[in-house]
């Protein structure tokens, strides 16, 4: 019998509570057959977070918890597929269509993500469902998330304001940390090029109706790599200087069945120091940055009868950034941020539909040099529902969010749906509208050459997408089209001599095709697996001078391809990766062309000891040692990078 997603969430919770009350030994909750049938990897879907861990490994990509919104365009990057490969969040995200990751140099330096042509600032990045985007503005630096924590990354493409609040014009990235699994432990150590060392340890414990996980991780690198400086000619071989970074983090999370429901809680602490090298033509040998982030989150859910699910949650995030910047005359600037959120929701679930109402309240506060001390409240009412029909083959999910952020009020809306066609084929589509409230930096920052503009309006995004999806025992594949219209875009323009300020000036259209494929291991072909993500992007400037109208937006390549082939099994495996980015332009009007870039990566691992799950991994990035790559912002990228990882764990971490 087909069940709505809401019911699929509530059933395991009821079952788990029943087990806990019955005093049985802790074990995975029994699966509802319908749930297994509907969940690609046997993972019970839920709100962001990993409340019910059922089956983690599977032949296909796991279904995203974010797929609570019917018709959402979602890719789930399962970190276990890359276990042992010393990949950061940015490198994992590159495996998703519609996504562009900018990595500014060596491992440990800043990296940001954009989706469907939106800027990094217009993408909402969550860590276990808690937004990391600071009220200060700018994109979230993915390098501040210790890669060893990552269990999976959920990428939701499109205007996703209903479920995730203002700011998600391009989409949402939710980084989900590893779940507690009783008795599981793991540890790894990595050494590699440019003085890069990483290590981590995780241990879980559990009992009747409870589980807890602790993890520590650290990374250090000198970031000193050779590169070729091509401008001005002739090319000169140089070494990247002042590029070191050290980061560390600790994570403690757990769950407990209490009060007739389930309580999930997590505490995360991460921070680091990095040198800021500047660009080769404008090095900043004295600049540095220190950042720290603390995050607390908790959520309690309990069923109320067979049809209601009640939930309450809260989170607090503290950010501290201190930087010495040559651009500001060598000043040391400080930024201290605090964000708190509380939410309560009630979901009414029936077999053929559900409705959920959520109230959120929060506060953003920022104290920063050049900005002063500002705070703004956040209030939101979210109404969402789902209708299921045609024996579960059809789902329709409307949703609306009314929100007030400071003085800005607005609405986000989304309507999505999916329809099972025949066999493994289904069609999904969605349309939505959302907006981004100006950041504190855009409203208040007066520093160096930057002036504020308190009169800014929110940016808006209106978009839609549709895709044909095939899911079966051999894997998943999808091909879809999307279009997003971005309006009132905030760009920095001159407002006075030597001063720039943000203004609502630009309008653009981004549309294209997204295709992805994730195959299950093919036993007849030495465990061959394939992973492919392709994005065709057509971007257009819709407002501006005649000579830029209708032409590409800056840094918006038409083709972006990620392809990975792997072979092997538990004893040994190998993989190769090719990434291609077609030509792009640095400026409006197709000025300043950057040629296409093709990079090759490879890796292999071998099991050394079965009992402790001891495994040796070797990963080689930029296999052909191309030393002229840069991030299109002027930062050189490393040539061939070799990383060797020794990893052990129970249950053993083996490639899918």
């Amino acid at each position, binding site marked *: 019998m087909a069940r709505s997603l809401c019911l699929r969430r509530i059933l395991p919770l009821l079952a788990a509570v029943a087990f806990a009350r019955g005093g049985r030994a802790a074990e995975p909750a029994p699966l509802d057959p319908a749930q297994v049938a509907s969940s690609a990897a046997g993972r019970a879907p839920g709100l962001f977070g990993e409340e019910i861990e059922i089956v983690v490994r599977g032949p296909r990509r796991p279904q995203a918890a974010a797929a609570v919104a019917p018709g959402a365009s979602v890719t789930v990057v399962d970190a276990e597929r890359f276990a042992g490969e010393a990949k950061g969040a940015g490198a994992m995200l590159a495996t998703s269509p519609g996504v562009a990751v900018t990595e500014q140099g060596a491992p440990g330096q800043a990296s940001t993500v954009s989706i469907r042509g939106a800027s990094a600032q217009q993408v909402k990045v969550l860590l276990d469902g808690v937004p990391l985007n600071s009220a200060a503005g700018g994109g979230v630096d993915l390098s501040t998330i210790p890669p060893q924590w990552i269990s999976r990354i959920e990428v939701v493409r499109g205007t996703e304001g209903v479920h995730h609040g203002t700011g998600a014009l391009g989409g949402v990235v939710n980084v989900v940390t590893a779940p507690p699994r009783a008795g599981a432990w793991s540890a790894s150590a990595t050494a590699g090029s440019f003085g890069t060392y990483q290590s981590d340890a995780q241990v879980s414990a559990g009992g009747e109706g409870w589980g807890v996980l602790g993890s520590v991780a650290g990374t250090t690198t000198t970031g000193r790599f050779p590169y070729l*400086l091509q*401008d*001005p*000619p002739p090319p000169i071989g140089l070494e990247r200087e002042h590029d070191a970074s050290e980061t560390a983090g600790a994570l403690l999370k757990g769950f407990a069945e209490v009060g007739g429901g389930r309580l999930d809680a997590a505490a995360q602490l991460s921070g680091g120091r990095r040198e800021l090298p500047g*660009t080769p*033509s*404008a*090095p*900043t040998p004295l600049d540095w940055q220190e950042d720290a982030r603390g995050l607390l989150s908790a959520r309690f859910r309990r069923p109320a009868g067979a049809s209601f699910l009640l939930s309450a949650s809260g989170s607090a995030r503290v950010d501290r950034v201190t930087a010495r910047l040559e651009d*500001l*005359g060598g*000043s040391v600037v400080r930024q201290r941020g605090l964000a708190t959120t509380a939410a309560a929701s009630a979901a009414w679930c029936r077999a053929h539909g559900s409705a959920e109402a959520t109230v959120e309240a929060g506060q953003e506060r920022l104290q920063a040099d050049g900005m002063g001390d500002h705070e703004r409240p956040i209030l939101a009412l979210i109404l969402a529902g789902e209708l299921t029909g045609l024996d579960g083959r059809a789902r329709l999910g409307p949703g609306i969010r009314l929100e007030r952020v400071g003085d800005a009020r607005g609405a986000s809306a989304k309507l999505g749906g999916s329809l099972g*066609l025949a066999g493994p*084929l289904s*069609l999904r*589509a969605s349309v939505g509208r959302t907006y981004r409230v100006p950041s504190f930096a855009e409203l208040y920052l*007066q520093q*160096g*050459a930057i*002036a*504020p503009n308190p009169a800014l309006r929110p940016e808006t995004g209106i978009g*839609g*997408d*549709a895709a*044909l999806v095939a899911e079966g025992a051999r894997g998943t594949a999808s*091909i*879809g*089209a999307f*279009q997003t*219209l971005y309006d009132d875009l905030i760009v*920095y*323009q*001159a*407002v*006075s*001599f*030597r*001063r720039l*300020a943000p*203004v609502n000036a630009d309008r653009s*259209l981004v*549309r294209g095709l997204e295709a992805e494929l994730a195959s299950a291991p093919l036993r007849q072909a030495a465990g061959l697996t394939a992973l492919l993500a392709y994005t065709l992007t057509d971007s*257009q400037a*819709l*407002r*501006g*001078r*005649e*000579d830029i*109208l209708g032409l590409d937006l*800056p840094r918006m390549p038409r083709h972006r391809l990620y392809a990975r082939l792997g072979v092997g099994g538990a004893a040994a495996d190998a993989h190769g990766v090719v990434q291609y980015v077609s030509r792009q332009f*640095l*400026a*409006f*009007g197709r*000025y*300043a*062309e*950057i040629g296409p870039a093709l990079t090759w990566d490879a890796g292999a691992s071998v099991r050394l000891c079965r009992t402790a799950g001891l495994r040796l991994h070797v990963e080689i990035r930029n296999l052909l040692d191309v030393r002229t790559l840069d991030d299109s912002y*002027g930062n050189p990228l490393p040539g061939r990078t070799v990383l060797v990882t020794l990893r052990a764990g129970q249950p053993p971490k083996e490639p899918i």
Partner: protein
Amino acid sequence: MTRALTVLLAFLAAASGCARKEQTCSSDLTLCDAGCTALATDRASCGACGHACLAGESCYAGACLCPHPTACGGLCVDLESDPVHCGSCDVACAGALVCTTSSGATSCAPSCATGQTACERACVDLGTNVQSCGACQRSCGTNERCTSGRCVSDLYLACWNSDEVREATGALAAAGIPRPVAPGPIGLAWSGELLAVASAKAGGAETLSAFRFDPPGVRRSTLLETSFAAPDFEYLAAHEALLYVSHASLGTLLIVTPSGSIVDEVRLVPAGSPNPNPQGIAFDSGDRAYVALAGTGEVVVLDVSQALACALGAQSRPCATVLARLDLAPLASTGALPMPARIAATGGRAFVAMWNLDAYFGVPAGSTGRLAAISGSTLDFDATFAGTASGVIDLGPDCLDASDVAAYGGKLYVTCGAFDYSNYPTVTIQGAGIVPVDVSGAVAKVLPAVATPVDAQPVAPGKLAFCGSTGYVGDRNSGRVFLFDPASGSTTLGTGVELCPPSNGFAFVADIACGP
């Protein structure tokens, strides 16, 4: 499957219909079918889109007017050459006779006078006739003049905000029609008959383009385009048929031929050093280039005598060598960075205008405008001439944030004005004016400043150009240009004329070039 794909394609097609393009124009232009149009001066759309002026008429302030004193039967005619109204109205030249004017006398004749060309029986001098400039029936634009067969103006302005080059007469009347260029025109320089334009703006590219003004019409071509994350051309100068560009994004001096070939890109500091932020360039009579490095607070002196040979292939790189490097830090006020910006070379010396500001471009307490004097013979500070031990010429508190320096008639003129953003959004300008410095004697002598007019919108004098005997000053706080007569002895600048339109409430006259 086919049906599903059809749905996908239909979705894309339907959604595309929402994408409405919106062309934007400079604030004083109007969007007509032909694009952004200056209704005030465009003969094809004068006063209204599509309202074309009649033959012989020009568009003045949006009205079609006859530039000649005589109109015959409502038609605008040139009695000196019109074969239907030759010498006076309704006096037509018979048959194949042409209408010509020679020695002040107009008559019908079998052929044109020497130096004239018959354009449909009207004898004109293609070198000077604004109705047939360079070619028959090639009319020059409003307020343009015809010089050597080219339609040109007295002044060319780099309008940084509106991304245009605009023209004006010597009396500051708008001329011609605005010419769009690559975003952020920052520098203008004549190289032969080419007007080169250096452009760079965040979100744009670094572009070197050039205008030709000879028939069949004004043409813009791109000489050079470079791609960098932070585009930053800062200054453009011409010397011995080559163009020199301060390439601040790379911290180099770019030497380019008028056809756009890079002769050399001269590193001004060793690779891997902090960016020196090259600014103004000046040449002395001895093939030496002085380049101001605002980032490192230095002036480098280069020998560019081999650059032309390099361009011709007779010499290999390097095409310029560093002769001297002078540190201006000791010349700055206490608490200030020297930030040398613009240079004028005259009388065997180079004079360097220093911003003399703090790192936020703010004025340190007690600071004054400063000019460094460098001897061309010793390539060191000329303390004797400056009258100070360090070689600095102190311009006083009435000249803060020295912007430009130009030489004329034995004097230097320094434009000044510092922006005070401490009470933003209220912006005030301190120490604004033009300070003359007499450099004709053995010791430099600072003369009383020419004050800026008291105006609702304060003036920050910037670019200074002398065209003939008249000075023209561009404003850094608006799109206005001011006339400045160095011989008048006036102590206050007159009222300016807004020639570059604002956007976001701001305009900036980045450079002024005199017409040919």
